[in-house]
């Protein structure tokens, strides 16, 4: 967790627990990408993972209640590696424990929902979940290696 990051330096973003707030994420990622030279596949993966995890927290963690906070912090670990840390004060929810939807055998069997966490797991290079005293912390790391489809790893602590 980068405790030095602040909203004013652009490395943090605080959202209210409303789905409409997620629209603030893509322009924030664009600014981060321009500032830190984040490659476009990583930018896409960050955008996707944040949309999925934030919408999950808002709909399930906070049960659609507004006026709660979600904090996102950006951290550079080393060259070509980028981390986003998402914190909330919602009841305990570990997205890594959610089962993937079954592989469909026909068009009728395609699940209309449940793809979000699967996409999160597939487009992040590493995901770590931590239960905090008053909420949840999810740390998502992306590594620039020419593909967003390799080297997935998940951890729960």
């Amino acid at each position, binding site marked *: 967790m980068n405790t030095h990051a602040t909203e004013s330096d652009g490395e943090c973003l605080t959202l209210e627990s409303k789905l409409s707030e997620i629209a603030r994420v*893509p322009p924030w990622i664009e600014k981060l990408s321009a500032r830190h030279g984040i490659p476009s596949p990583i930018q896409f993966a960050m*955008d*996707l993972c944040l*949309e*999925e995890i934030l919408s999950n927290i808002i709909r399930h963690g906070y049960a659609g209640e507004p006026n709660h906070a979600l904090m996102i912090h950006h951290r550079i670990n080393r060259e070509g590696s980028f981390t986003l840390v998402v914190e909330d004060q919602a009841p305990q929810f570990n997205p890594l424990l959610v089962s993937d939807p079954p592989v469909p055998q026909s068009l*009728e069997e*395609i699940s209309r929902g449940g793809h979000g966490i*699967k*996409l999160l797991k597939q487009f992040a290079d590493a995901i770590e979940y931590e239960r905090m005293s008053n909420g949840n912390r999810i740390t998502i790391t992306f590594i620039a290696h020419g593909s967003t*489809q390799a080297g997935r790893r998940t951890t729960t602590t």
Partner: protein
Amino acid sequence: MQISTEELEGGVTRVILDGRLDIVGAQAIDLKMNVIAGTKKLVLIDMQKVSFIGSMGLRTLVIPAQAIKGRGGKLVLFGPNEMVESVLKSSAIHTLIPIYHEFQSAVAALQ
């Protein structure tokens, strides 16, 4: 998110999407997609100008595809960019809703 339609020969409806198929984008076009799903039988979704898709965007494609198939029709996807296609493939949707990168092949698949 913008949506427009164009009627092609052979009863094919081309649905042109333009923008981000995220939560906001999906909500913006869901009603029009539902109307298309309830009235058209051969549908080509032109995704060349879709820059992003998330799970809610997938839902916006899957529900009409299921409805159209239920009425004896077919829906295909045309021209997603590399990243959008990787999302479609990650969710295995591409195995049941075909993706084409040549326009004539997409149209031919509907006829």
